[in-house]
């Protein structure tokens, strides 16, 4: 258990796990998404592999393909994001705001997904994040629902309409 939580207790490694939660990825893909070189990425992957959280599942495009080891790890990440304090409030017009400034990937995306599921059709949701990768992932995932995305005072304000 200590080994698992030690491996988890790192921003970059949480980000790697967050990316693997969505899909298996090649080392090249992870390097590109994280803007990291292979050597640094491997250091983290080895720690995650040793803890039994990720594994090599094969090859794709001549590169090694990594995935989470099991659905248990998937749910661990989901539960972890739920455990962190839910910073959701409503503004004066009753619009839901998810304030995840200061949170690293995958927390902003997981929280957005959770509130999105509770949203009625036609309702809007505002996400505040200062983590660029999370902003990108939210925009990609909800590309058909984006109303606006603007940068204000060092964070992004993304408005989505269901």
């Amino acid at each position, binding site marked *: 258990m200590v080994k698992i939580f030690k491996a988890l207790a790192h921003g970059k490694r949480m980000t790697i796990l967050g990316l693997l939660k*969505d*899909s*298996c990825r090649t080392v090249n893909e992870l390097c590109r998404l994280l803007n990291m070189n292979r050597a640094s990425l491997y250091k983290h992957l080895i720690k995650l592999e040793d803890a039994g959280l990720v594994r090599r*599942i*094969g090859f*794709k495009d001549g590169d090694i*393909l990594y*995935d*989470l080891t*099991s*659905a248990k790890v*998937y*749910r661990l990440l989901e539960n972890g994001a739920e455990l962190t304090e839910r910073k959701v409030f409503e503004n004066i017009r009753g619009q839901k705001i998810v304030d995840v400034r200061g949170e690293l990937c995958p927390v902003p995306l997981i929280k957005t*997904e959770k509130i999105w*599921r509770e949203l009625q059709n036609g309702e809007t949701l505002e996400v505040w994040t200062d983590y660029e990768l999370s902003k990108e992932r939210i925009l990609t*995932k*909800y590309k058909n629902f984006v109303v606006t995305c603007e940068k204000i005072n060092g964070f992004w304000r993304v408005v989505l309409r269901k």
Partner: protein
Amino acid sequence: MADVKVDKTLDVRGEVCPVPDVETKRALKKMESGQVLEVLIDYPLSKERIPANVKKEGHEVLAIEEIGNSEWRILIRKK
């Protein structure tokens, strides 16, 4: 869910990520709105990801059934 008429079956048992997820997306793209796709998988992570991803695309997940030892059947209605 025995009374649901299945329009297309995608058997990706034996395949690992990303094949089941990609093939499901591809199959849905080719189908008509309202049709039902049955996906057979044995890769546990795809059982988590496929329902999450198709819901995000607006499709309806009708059922996720365990049909064997680490084998699942997912029924999806195209939006």
